[in-house]
């Protein structure tokens, strides 16, 4: 904990500077991008440059909204509506998060099971792995509606189909990392267990799996971020049901850029939060391992 504190201190100034530069650039860009629309539709014919600044930074249908607009929009949506209202972004965040987490859980289980199978079967290692890689080149957005309809025809609706799409994106990093991780015990360690005359299951439990943990957690962080993307993509074709993806789509549909950006910002925060949770779990589980 001490280390991370001093780390934060070391990073805070450079990060602050980079952030400030970033935000200044953003505001400058907002002027450049919104100017033509503002001049054409908002400003009176005799405008001064102060009017232009004020108008470009507070436009109602901006090409690029400014950070403060986004923050205010998110803040308003969270504070002015009850959490259960579809107008509250937290509600949408929750809808997306629950599907993403379900998908993540399924993806993790699937990923680990696949990895275990691959590590123990030479045939599946060769037969399955190339196709697992190829599976990730299939565009999710294209198959998402198909999956939703097929599952719908099996009477599976609601959260689960979205979770399936999320799972599809989640399992890959986990499988790859776990295959690597389960193979990471060095030859000597494997031979040590061999000299004990141990079963495969025991080796898995006591050697392979613990050795794979350092591989699993970073993969989990990647996977949960991917799962979030998957859920949002799955929410696009379903249109105006709840969820951050739906907000994104509806924002695009109503030409409401602010809505898109707010959804993106909340999605990023959600992603941060979820990976943060994974990191905390990792810290807790790995607290007894050497800090590299």
């Amino acid at each position, binding site marked *: 904990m001490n280390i991370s504190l001093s780390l934060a201190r070391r990073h805070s100034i450079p990060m602050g500077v980079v*952030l400030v530069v970033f935000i200044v650039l953003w505001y400058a860009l907002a002027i450049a991008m919104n100017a033509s629309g503002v001049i054409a539709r908002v400003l009176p014919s005799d405008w001064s440059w102060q009017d232009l600044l004020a108008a470009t930074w507070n436009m109602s249908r901006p*090409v690029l909204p400014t950070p403060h607009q986004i923050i205010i929009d998110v803040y308003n949506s969270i504070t002015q509506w009850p959490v259960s209202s579809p107008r509250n972004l937290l509600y949408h965040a929750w809808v997306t998060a629950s599907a993403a987490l379900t998908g993540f859980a399924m993806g993790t289980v699937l990923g680990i099971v696949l990895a275990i199978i691959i590590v123990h079967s030479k045939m599946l290692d060769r037969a399955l792995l190339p196709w697992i890689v190829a599976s990730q080149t299939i565009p999710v957005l294209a198959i998402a509606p198909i999956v939703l309809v097929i599952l719908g025809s099996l009477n599976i609706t609601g959260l689960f189909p979205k979770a399936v799409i999320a799972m599809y994106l989640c399992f890959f990093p986990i499988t790859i990392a776990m295959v690597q991780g389960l193979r990471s015990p060095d030859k000597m360690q494997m031979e040590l267990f061999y000299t004990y005359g141990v079963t495969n299951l025991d080796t898995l439990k006591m050697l392979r799996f613990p050795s794979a943990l350092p591989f699993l957690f970073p993969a989990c962080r990647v996977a949960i971020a991917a799962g979030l993307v998957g859920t*949002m993509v799955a929410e696009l074709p379903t249109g105006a049901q709840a969820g951050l993806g739906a907000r994104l789509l509806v924002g695009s549909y109503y030409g409401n*850029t602010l809505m*898109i950006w707010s959804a*993106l910002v909340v999605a990023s925060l959600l992603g941060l939060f979820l990976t943060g949770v994974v990191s905390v779990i990792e810290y807790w589980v790995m607290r007894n391992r050497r800090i590299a």
Partner: protein
Amino acid sequence: MKHYKSGALLIIFTLVFALLGLTQFIHIDFTEPNLTIDYMPCLASLCLIIVAVWSCFAAVRFKHVLIIQVLTLLASYFLLKSAEHEASNIIQFWLVTISLILSANLCLKYFVEQPDVAVSQLIIAALFGFWCLYLWQLIVTVLQVPQVLLPTPVAIGHALITNTVMLWGDFVQTVIKSVVIGYLLGNGLGILSAIVIERSSFLRRGFLPLANLTSTVPLVGVAPIAVMWFGFDWPSKAAVIVLVTYFPALVSALAGLQSTNKLEQELMHSYAASYWFTLKCLRLPAAMPFIFNALKVNSALALITAIVAEYFGSPTQGLGFRISVEAARMHMPIVWSAIVVASVAGSLLYALLVYLERRVTFWHPAIRKA
């Protein structure tokens, strides 16, 4: 005897299922003296029985494996033929199907034991893919899944052949224009930035945490915005791809540049080597495995991103355009053929990268071992 042991259980089950399937397809109707036979499934089960019996005695030789494989293929052909007419005797039908799967599995097992790894790797992956497609075809035909939900592989193949020109145009639009340009730009910029940032600890400390944060941001979400900013043609797609690939490339390349161990750096230090020399001869080569990892991850990411971005607006060409338009027109075989084009393109790009990686980072322990 070893080859026998490894597949013994499979062989036994193959035999049992095939026999069961065979007996059930011969209906003896006692009220009428003549007996009716479903010829096709009978032939299929006969082939499978031959496979199983042969497997008991065949050594693991390429010739024998081929013969077994051919027989299994024959069985699968008969089975599919009968499915197209009608699967009258559904349970028996699935019994034969299961024994078919088992003997297909057996063939794969035999290939695994082939000594020539490079060849058998290819054959195994291809065969496995073939069997998956076969089962897909079988299930869709037998269960009579509507084409608008899930077309058969044969229909997809047909669509692929009849629409080559159109799909080629889409391929050029999406892959050659958007993906290649966006991918090269994104990764190139990422690696260059990494080299720049690596020199300054201030920038490194300021940028890296922020760059890491972006991995949690669903960047494809900017696709509608990109369409708004960069227009409907490929530049907007390339822009999203640049954004999506930039940060992984940056983070990995940076990690790679910093991966040289202290001893190597001190060696260069003791030679008083210049920064550029150290970069060229030490840091960049050491970073290559990391960079290739990012390139591989990004290859799939770039393609998917391009297709997603096309959903939010495109000219009248492109794989994403094709998929969304034809899906709405209920031409699912065309949709799937576009998906096939996309994932073949992605897989080829990936394979190319793996090949390059093997050439460039030949020295890396993970590659040396293989």
